[in-house]
């Protein structure tokens, strides 16, 4: 006991976590949650905490890492294994913010000061924190008038916004190639319409927003995507009637993410609260099972370590009948993801969009006209339910278009035939960052296709320029 205390003092009150430790988010069992204000209050009701679980994982070997906070959850371990970032709330009235604490213990330190709160911490290269803000109201994650956007924040610097969707961008994780993978809604014009969730990626400067998986699958809920040791992307998927912070565990293979969606486990995995990778290839899964609490049978989430090819979930690694262990992450140093040298030009008022062939599509054109597009109409979403047409630009005979467009605003496209009929429609769902040169190979083109090697005719002309000054606004 004395030796342990002395070693902590010698370590400058920043003890390191013992090898094999887990960081775990726990919510109290059997405590009826009060009316929740935000989505995080639903996920982490008062009393929720982040703890360090030290081998051999007994209930009496738990160190609380979120001391002083009324609720906490969603832990994320830094790449060097020394720090834990998590969502925390300092008082009942306070916003949720991101905190960090030494993995071995200590006093949590607030690292974000976002109006409306911050959530879903993830770490990119060079100590960069990625998170979502604001924290949407409970039940309004996908219908909030001010959707949650992704931000990045270097240590001791101001946060910078990365996404400009009309829908929330949440659940970020950083892939080994340095991209940020996150969950958002399939683009649609009417934000009140039923929506499906899917996975997207961006660079850590907000450039190259790209569909990653599930865009055509019609999944109602996707949560907590994580890159496994073998490169597969695991996530929780749920149907509408299973609304809640759990689901079945699915995955896609990075070799063909749009063609390989399947269950991660060979066994039934409904009721899963989280999956996290381990370096050895196993998965830490927090799954709800039923247990006796007092006189009632109550679901309790326990931690399982599951081999990727396991036929059954096996015995829990840790199960505390007084706490739901809903998220568990191994505390260990891992290879930092790749960095990214930004191509953003701060202050540049526009970016440039090149489409190699607007007629190249995997979907048939709408309307009766089989003719190729002659014009491209660009519009921007300028507020909830408000779109403004920026103008039209001619399409070259090979289908290519190049146009300079305003930055950091959701943009949408219509391809038009010679009579002005809309052939294909892309809701306002992509954006350009300042100075970004962005290209696509078609409109609704086949996924994961490289460009064919042909010189786009549009590049022989100076690009047209469309700004936000056009007064044409349509509801």
């Amino acid at each position, binding site marked *: 006991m004395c030796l342990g205390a002395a070693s902590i003092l010698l370590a400058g009150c920043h003890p390191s976590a013992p090898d094999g430790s887990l960081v775990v988010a726990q919510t109290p069992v059997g405590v009826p949650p009060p009316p929740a204000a935000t989505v995080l209050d639903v996920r982490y009701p008062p009393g929720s905490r982040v703890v360090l679980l030290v081998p051999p994982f007994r209930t009496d070997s738990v160190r609380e890492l979120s001391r002083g906070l009324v609720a906490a959850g969603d832990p994320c371990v830094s790449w060097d294994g020394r720090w834990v970032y998590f969502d925390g709330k300092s008082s009942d009235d306070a916003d949720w913010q991101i905190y960090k604490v030494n993995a071995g213990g200590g006093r949590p330190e607030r690292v974000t000061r976002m109006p409306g709160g911050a959530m879903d911490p993830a770490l990119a*290269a060079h100590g960069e924190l990625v998170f979502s803000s604001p924290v949407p109201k409970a039940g309004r994650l996908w219908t909030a008038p001010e959707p949650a956007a992704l931000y990045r924040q270097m240590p001791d610097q101001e946060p910078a916004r990365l996404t400009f969707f009309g829908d929330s961008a949440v659940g970020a994780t950083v892939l080994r*190639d*340095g991209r940020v993978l996150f969950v958002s809604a399939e683009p649609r014009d009417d934000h009140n319409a039923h929506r499906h969730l899917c996975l997207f990626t961006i*660079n850590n400067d907000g450039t*190259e927003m*790209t569909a990653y998986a599930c865009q055509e699958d019609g999944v109602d809920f996707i949560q907590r995507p994580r890159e496994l040791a073998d*490169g597969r992307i695991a996530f929780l998927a749920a149907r509408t009637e299973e609304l809640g912070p759990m689901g079945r565990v699915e995955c896609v*293979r*990075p*070799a*063909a*993410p*749009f*063609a*390989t969606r399947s269950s991660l486990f060979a066994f039934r995995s409904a009721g899963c609260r989280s999956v996290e990778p381990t370096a050895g290839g196993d998965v830490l899964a927090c799954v709800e099972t039923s247990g006796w609490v007092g006189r009632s049978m109550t679901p309790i989430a326990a931690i399982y370590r599951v081999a990727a090819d396991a036929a059954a979930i096996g015995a829990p690694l840790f199960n505390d009948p007084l706490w739901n262990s809903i998220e568990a992450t191994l505390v260990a140093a891992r290879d930092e993801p*790749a*960095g*990214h*040298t*930004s*191509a953003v030009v701060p202050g540049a008022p526009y970016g*440039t969009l*090149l489409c*190699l062939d607007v007629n190249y599509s995997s979907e048939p054109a709408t309307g009766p006209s089989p003719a190729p597009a002659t014009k491209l109409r660009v519009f921007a979403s300028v507020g909830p339910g408000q779109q403004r047409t920026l103008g039209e630009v001619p399409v070259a005979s090979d289908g290519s278009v*190049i146009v300079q467009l305003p930055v950091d605003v959701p943009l949408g496209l219509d391809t038009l035939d010679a009579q002005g009929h809309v052939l294909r429609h892309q809701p306002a769902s992509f954006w350009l960052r300042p*100075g970004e*040169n*962005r*290209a696509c190979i078609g409109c609704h083109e*086949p*996924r*994961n*296709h*490289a*460009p*064919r*090697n*042909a*010189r*786009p005719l*549009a*590049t*022989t002309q100076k*690009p047209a320029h469309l700004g936000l000054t056009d007064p044409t606004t349509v509801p």
Partner: protein
Amino acid sequence: MKLKPFILVTTPLILAGVGAATGVSVHERRMSGLPQLGYVSCIHCHQRGLDTLPWAKPRPHHDAPGGIAVSPDGKTLFIALDDRDEVAEADLASFTVSRRTKVPGGPFGLALDAVGKRLFVACRNHDRVAVLDTLDLKEQASIDVGIRPTDIAYCKTAEGERLIVPNSGSDDISVLSVSPLLELTRSAAGREPYAVAVSGDGRRVCIANRMAVHDQILSQPYSEVTVIDPASGHILAREALQSAHLAEGITDVPTRGWTLNSVVRVSNLVPITQVKDGWVMSSGVAIARGNGEVTQVPLDEANAYFPDPSGVVASPDGKRAYVASAGSDVVTVIDLDKLAAWLAQADEAERGGAMVNMALSYRYVVARIPTGCDPQHLALSPDGSRLFVAERLEDRVLVVDTASLKPVGRIVLGDGGLDDPIRLGERVFTRARYTFQGQFSCRSCHPDGHVDGLSYDFDGAGVGDNLLANRSLCGVAGTEPFKWNGKNPTLQYQDGPRFARVLMRTDEIPQPQLDQLATYIKHLPPTRTIPWSRVGQPLTPAEERGRKLFFATKRTDGTPIPRALQCQTCHRPPLYTDRLLTSVGTKGSQDTSGVFDTPHLIGVGAMAPYLHDGRAKTLEEIWTIYQTDDKHGVSSYWSKLQLNDLVEYLKTL
């Protein structure tokens, strides 16, 4: 009191200094022909001799495995060690080297006869083929072939035994008879014939040409598969692989009648606005199924890349193919039954577009075997049970059990050269890990440090306005600044922050590795463009006439040629560059500037295409098509024969 002597002393010095500076400035402007020239130092133009450059100095040599060949009994592996001028023999029971023998001239390609008694060695540095007796590893015979032979194949024909040798430096193919050892024919190939494969029946030999050519600027490049009759040496076919290049490996697939060719699919005509989704290039295999159709399919995946495909071999039963990816240190295993099934069900459009479908390879790729650094040549044991992988920058050969696809041993040839900064730099050069998703390496565009013969539209302030020809890295030491606009003062700057932003799309290469990379590049010697037998020999009469034309100060009629328009002014020996920006009237409609860095000319004969955007396919076209008002030298008085002479001279530099 002491002011007067001070003034008396310093004033003349200052005046002399000002006068000298003025004189130097006048001299510089007069000699460069650039009246607006700012300050440049004396050594900018008065360069050191070539013998002081890094590439001209002695360097460490290593036991890098080149070509490998397994004996018919499966007991012995022969390994070409081109950097050592040696061939090694390894015992496959113990995975140890049993003998080594000197074979001068950079032995690189190996082939055995049908019974394993004679080993044929293509020596790429001395342009020859040597015949070794495998009993004593003594050289029995030698014959000169074309420039830089890189591979060799043996086959029996009705007309007798034949050796087929692709000569990568002279763009031709030597067909040799074995007894006697004679060159029967030398046929024109595509650009840089590199690897050769004999069909199962011995009636056709396919040669992979590493570099692509294009018909005109901004047209789609293609590399050629040259098909010849080994008996006669006659060309049977020239198959074009559209937008494919860097074909370093080719193999016949027994039982299927297929030929597999490792290729890189390039999108050089598309502006490089991004890297993801194989936007710049991707790796694959071209399949010629003998029905006249060639289908290219990807080795890469939607989010993982396996660049610089090199050696390729197929199992004796035709069930599997193995492809070495030198940039990612992986051997990819292809299930040919699955690939055949996909080909059978795909329609023509799907097959035609297969190579750009980055989500296709999971259907037929069944394994990725990790290897050491820079796997290039592959060989299989006769029964197909062992795969041998030449780990070139590890000085080792990896042995893989093809049933389990697990390594079972390594044949150690050397220590890897980890104490040699040039070798360490070569590792940086060949590894793709420094680019986004490991999509390509420096070598992907600069095979052997040279050019890939393509122009790329790099990302810049705009889109589509930065088309630039790739430039060779061979012999660039001392020619700084770099880049066509001359904005990069050092190789470290060129390959560090600039490439990280416009091409690699990831973090900069860390400084230690960047310094190693620069060291390696500075030690790349110029490309040899004349036969080895002519090195050090006098110029031919035509070349001598061309030399006089190059250094001419007057036209044939005695009219003086302005100094600014004399070849030697900008292309000043010994590097044949003044390292200054000059306009030669080649500004294109999309170019933001008309002045470009003067390229050096050492090895220029192998650097096609020419001019900043690669518009000139040949040296001749610089003056026959793209000369504007005598701005690029005064050529209007040249006859066709004089131009021929000049080109002949330039090819000797």
